């Protein structure tokens, strides 16, 4: 009950800040766009981190760690390393291109309406792959704290996010996302410190015991393939390069005043993510000692919410559970409203003629599909599904943006071929890994975490097909302008 109250308070606070944020920006200037560029880099970095730290980081990381071992933390390293790639490759040039979204960028750089549409379809694929685990997280958390069936939680979560976007305040305000970062950090970090202090000496030593089991190996292994280094590298490739191509994160850089500022914001995000990712490991380590029963039979994604009650009994236990549940819900709320907005933008603005009622309809339709996809997904690990979203982004938009920004030879035909190859290969192998079981070996890794081959494939196809044709005459100008300090 306490937990439901905490989630309700969090939701009310987000709405209040959203409404206040919209008012504040409107009262300073009639132009919302310009106002948003006055947001300080610190707030901007917090907003990006707030949107980026999803249920995968708050629930999924500790859950997968409990199940698969300490090597799961490579996901967190890759999520953070992605921002080094963002700062180095896309933040500044994307800001200068004037494109808010990846389809916009494709239109700028290649001048092709068809590629714009293809990009919009890929946006939908990535966003749905990313939304399903978020909704699963919300369903699981609500089930734990209130006992409602899983499907009720998923449907309720879909309704809450749709309503909050339709009301208008959530997404538009940078401050709401920044607030959510603080909520997530505090609501995960403070209970973590508390739990470590209360666990007792014996449990602490036990949690840090290194043994010869696969669990203790500091590398990631997928489905016991026996190829830990390949699996680790494939996940690192997917998460690092996937961050470059995530559509909902790219558009956030446009709120920076200049390319110069956009790069600095990306560096700020690295600091904020690095601080955050120190804490989920605590839950995974303590979970191995206190809640090992979740591994067989239970849902390991619930460990972050279950753990406080196991370690601290009584009222304090339920207060801590409430705090962690509210943190998880903040993760769900901020990420999925960002995702749903990007999805609805793609549906209404790139695929059909834009209008505000249609945008609202697109939000509702996008949420409905995500809810329907999430209902049978209760057994899917949150982090695995998010890994697929990153793998698809890494094999499609990452090559498009990187080659579009740094190579003038990219042609529309090359981009289209590479995007098609990347999206088919990455989603195809993710599907195949769900439907088939090839047994231990490298094949299972290449299906379950396909980035190791789909990213090089997409780059190779894009470059190869582009070399066959000739880039348009103005391509060099379009590229040079992305790097010109005077642009």
């Amino acid at each position, binding site marked *: 009950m306490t937990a439901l109250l905490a989630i309700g308070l969090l939701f009310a606070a987000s709405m209040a800040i959203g409404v206040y944020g919209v008012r504040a920006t*409107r009262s300073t200037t009639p132009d919302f766009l310009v106002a948003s560029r006055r947001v300080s880099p610190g707030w901007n970095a917090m907003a990006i981190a707030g949107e980026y730290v999803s249920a995968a980081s708050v629930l999924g990381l500790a859950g997968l760690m409990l199940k698969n071992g300490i090597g799961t933390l490579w996901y967190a390293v890759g999520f953070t390393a992605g921002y080094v790639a963002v700062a180095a490759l896309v933040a500044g040039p994307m800001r200068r291109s004037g494109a808010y979204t990846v389809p916009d960028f494709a239109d700028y750089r290649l001048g092709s309406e068809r590629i714009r549409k293809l990009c919009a379809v890929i946006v939908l694929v990535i966003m749905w792959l990313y939304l399903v685990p978020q909704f699963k997280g919300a369903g699981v958390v609500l089930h734990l704290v209130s006992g409602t069936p899983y499907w009720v939680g998923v449907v309720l979560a879909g309704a809450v996010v749709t309503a909050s976007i339709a009301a208008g305040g959530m997404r538009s305000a940078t401050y709401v996302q920044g607030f959510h970062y603080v909520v997530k950090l505090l609501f995960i970090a403070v209970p973590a410190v508390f739990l470590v202090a209360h666990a007792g000496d014996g449990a602490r030593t036990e949690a840090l015991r290194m043994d010869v089991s696969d669990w203790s190996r500091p590398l990631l292994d997928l489905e016991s393939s026996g190829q830990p280094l390949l699996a680790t590298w494939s996940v690192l490739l997917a998460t690092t390069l996937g961050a470059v191509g995530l559509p909902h994160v790219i558009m956030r850089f446009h709120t920076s005043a200049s390319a110069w500022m956009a790069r600095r914001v990306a560096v700020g995000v690295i600091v904020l993510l690095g601080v955050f990712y*120190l804490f989920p490991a605590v839950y995974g380590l303590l979970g191995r000692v206190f809640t090992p029963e979740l591994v067989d039979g239970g849902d390991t994604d619930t460990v972050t919410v279950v753990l406080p009650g196991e370690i601290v009994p009584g009222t304090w236990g339920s207060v801590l559970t409430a705090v962690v549940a509210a943190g998880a819900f903040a993760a769900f709320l901020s990420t999925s409203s960002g995702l749903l907005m990007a999805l609805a933008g793609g549906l209404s603005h790139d695929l059909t003629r834009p209008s505000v009622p249609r945008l609202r309809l697109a939000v509702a339709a996008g949420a409905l599909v995500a809810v329907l996809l999430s209902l049978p997904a209760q057994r899917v690990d949150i982090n695995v599904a998010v890994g697929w979203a990153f793998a698809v982004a890494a094999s499609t938009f990452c090559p498009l943006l990187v080659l579009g920004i740094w190579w003038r030879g990219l042609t529309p035909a090359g981009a289209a071929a590479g995007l098609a190859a990347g999206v088919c290969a990455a989603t195809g192998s993710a599907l195949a890994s769900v439907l088939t079981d090839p047994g231990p070996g490298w094949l299972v890794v290449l299906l379950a975490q396909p980035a190791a081959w789909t990213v090089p494939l997409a780059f190779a196809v894009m470059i190869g097909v582009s070399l066959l044709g000739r880039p348009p005459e103005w391509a060099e100008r379009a590229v040079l302008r992305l790097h010109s300090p005077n642009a």
Partner: protein
Amino acid sequence: MSGPRRVRVTSPQTRIALSRGHRPAQHLLPQPVPGSPDEGELAHARAVFHRQRRLAARTLCLLALLLFGLSGLLGAAAWLGRVSVLGIPVSWLLLMAASYPLLLVIAVFHVRGAERIERPGRSGRPGPSERPGPSERRGPSRRRGR
């Protein structure tokens, strides 16, 4: 949420694309003819681009070295798990905390390098810098690159 009238915000690129209709991209003009005053500017822009690309490639190599190197080290050196600092196995400590400060260092060096390349007057060419002013002056009309 009543209140002020809602304004639809679109990307400048979208506005350009919508106003362009099916005509070819007007905002991206072909290269200037040799000998025109634009030529010097073009050479400068090319130089900036190549310097930025070299810097980005170097940063990516460092990033790959850190990620693949650290994971390779942890995979190869099993003895790191048998040594512990403050009760934590060294290999776990490296995985949990070592990479974040190094990632930050790589990013900070990249940003400093990129800003040095962009600094006006580096190659003797004064130009309006992006740094000080707010961006309101640079509206979409100027983006068309006339």
